[in-house]
């Protein structure tokens, strides 16, 4: 039994090794056993909460589908190396990479130089090798700076097949942005088209990332800068201020309109109100006058001569007291006319002369004749003929001898 070992030469060579093993085992067999056990357990891995792990067994990915390949957070049992190799990938972490391929890429000193050149009226240009920019659909030039945020979507692809993340992101995002800018006008890009530009570029970049099996997901593309070149910045500013000026003009006009129309309403309303007021007042006056006239009429009907005379005398007295000067002239003698006579031709009713029973054929109190014909005309005639205005009295029947 004991002689069944390897040939004597090998045994002779192996003897020191055997002695080493025997010695090691005798002196520290617990230690060795522990090492062996630890090695056997070395395949057990802890997968952290933001990670997934995949297992390579003899280099090949274990599992047929991504769902079977990926192992979530927790304890992962695998064989020790070199059989299994566990690759852990942070899938929830969002990384970011600045994309400066289209940004001006000039340092502060150079920017100052450029401003000086601009002041001196030197025409500026851009060196495509050192200064990034993109051309818009209407052949304007704009500078862009971006930050791409991404995470790993497919750990196996990303870990083993995809290109280096930062390289592929930079070129895919740049290409997508150049392409998307190339189909939009500069005015849209710089105003309301910004969001749609970013959305289109993000979509294109993601398609590119998928096409090259990068296993990456572009979670957010952020535009940190989007400006026209310094050389034409002023002109863009001028458009902006022209726009604002135009807006101000419109607002001023609007304000004018908003004050003018209510004012017009107020004026019109005031005019209408005053007309209403005047109308009411005029009507009230008219009604008052009418009532007074009716009252007077009642009195007149009761005693016409008295009322008539009172009214006449009141009027004449008022006229005499109001007039600036009153002259009295004697009545005409013979056929020569020496003055004026105010007389009241006797009415058909024959008013009683209460105060002056004169012997003369003419009535001492001239009383206006009762009107005939249209009231209006009569009215005028009466005031002309009978009022105490200077008028040519008619000699003849009206003349009388004062004696």
């Amino acid at each position, binding site marked *: 039994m004991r002689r069944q070992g390897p040939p004597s030469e090998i045994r002779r060579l192996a003897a020191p090794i055997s002695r080493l093993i025997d010695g090691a085992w005798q002196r520290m067999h617990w230690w060795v056993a522990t090492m062996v056990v630890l090695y056997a357990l070395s395949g057990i891995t802890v997968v952290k909460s933001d990670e997934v792990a995949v297992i390579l067994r003899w280099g*090949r990915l274990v599992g047929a589908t991504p769902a079977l390949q990926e192992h979530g957070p927790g304890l992962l049992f695998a064989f020790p190396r070199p059989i299994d190799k566990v690759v852990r990938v942070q899938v929830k972490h969002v990384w970011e990479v600045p994309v400066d391929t289209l940004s001006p890429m000039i340092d502060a000193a150079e920017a100052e130089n450029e401003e000086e050149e601009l002041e001196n009226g030197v025409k500026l240009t851009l060196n495509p090798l050192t200064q990034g920019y993109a051309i818009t659909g209407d052949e*304007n030039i704009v500078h862009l700076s971006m930050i791409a945020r991404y995470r790993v979507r497919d750990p196996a692809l990303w870990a083993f097949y995809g290109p280096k993340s930062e390289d592929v992101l930079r070129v895919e995002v740049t290409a997508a942005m150049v392409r998307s800018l190339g189909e939009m006008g500069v005015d849209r890009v710089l105003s309301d088209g910004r969001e749609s530009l970013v959305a289109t570029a993000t979509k294109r970049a993601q398609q590119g990332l998928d096409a090259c099996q990068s296993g990456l997901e572009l979670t957010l593309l952020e535009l940190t800068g989007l400006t026209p070149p310094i050389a034409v910045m002023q002109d863009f500013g001028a458009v902006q201020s022209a726009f604002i000026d135009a807006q101000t003009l419109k607002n001023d006009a609007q304000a004018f309109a908003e004050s003018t129309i209510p004012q017009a309403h107020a004026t019109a309303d005031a005019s209408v109100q005053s007309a209403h007021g005047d109308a009411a007042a005029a009507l009230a006056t008219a009604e008052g006058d009418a009532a007074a006239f009716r009252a007077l009429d009642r009195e007149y009907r009761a005693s016409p001569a008295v009322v008539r005379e009172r009214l006449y005398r009141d009027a004449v007295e008022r006229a005499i007291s109001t007039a600036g000067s009153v002259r009295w002239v004697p009545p005409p003698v013979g056929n020569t006319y020496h003055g004026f006579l105010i007389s009241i031709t006797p009415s058909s009713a024959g008013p009683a002369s209460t105060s002056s029973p004169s012997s003369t054929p003419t009535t001492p109190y001239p009383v206006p004749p009762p009107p005939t014909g249209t009231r209006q005309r009569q009215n005028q005639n009466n005031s002309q003929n009978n009022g105490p205005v200077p008028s040519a009295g008619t000699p003849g029947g009206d003349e009388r001898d004062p004696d």
Partner: protein
Amino acid sequence: MADAMTTQRWLRAIVGTLALLAIIIQATAVVVGEGQAVLITRFGRPLRAATQAGLHWKLPWPIDSASLLDMRRRVYETGQTEMLTRDKKNVIARTFVVWRIGDPLAFTQAIGSQGNAESKLDGLLTNAAIGTLGGHDMSALVSTNPSDLQVDQIEAQLLSSTAPIALRSYGVAVEQIRLERIALPEENVSAVFDQMRAERRQFAMKYQAEGDQEASRIHSEAQLEAARIIAKGAEETARIRGQSAAEVAKTYADAHRTDPELYSFTRSLESLGKLVTGSTSLILRTDSEPFSLLQNKGK
């Protein structure tokens, strides 16, 4: 004692076997990881390429030797090359290419290293780009009219004209070619700036003119509206006044109709009152009332 001896013999056997196995595996097994390939050569002559991940076998050194190749995709950006479009505009274009080793054998033989591959690709792509862009107008690259844009076609054309050559000649699989940048030669940029400035000025003037126009429109509309409102008010006022005059006239007429004669008389007296003012001189005969009363006194 016999137990200890037995244990030691087993231990020796196990350790010996394991060591032997390790040596054999180290010499003959090749572990090809995902994203890797291995090229096995026998006495320097390429024998086969293993592109599948997993355990592969070879004869021990010095008969067979294995070299691992990185099969990952790689990104390469070409230089910026100035080229002419069909409408004779100078354009500086830069493309990028995503590539990987497509044929490990051909790749190793023709190129050997990544750096070499990229310089070969650069030449290939630059040529293709010059040829392809020369067949398109500038508007195929940048345009606000979607029907002019032909970037997809250009990229497809670039891919189809370079991918087969790259694979056949260099064992390089080109998977994606994109136009990464489109720029203008430095000397053309100032012309573009001039154009941009002119365009901006035009816009500024347009905004200004529109603002003026709009403002004066609002202004005159407001004035017109105000005039209309005031005119309407005046019309209403005139109507009210007319109506009122009619009512007043009717009121007076109703009253005066009861006694036209009295009205005529009182109206005459009113006129008298109104006509005689402070500047009026009255010349009356002495036999007029009330002077006559004094003369007739005593009679």
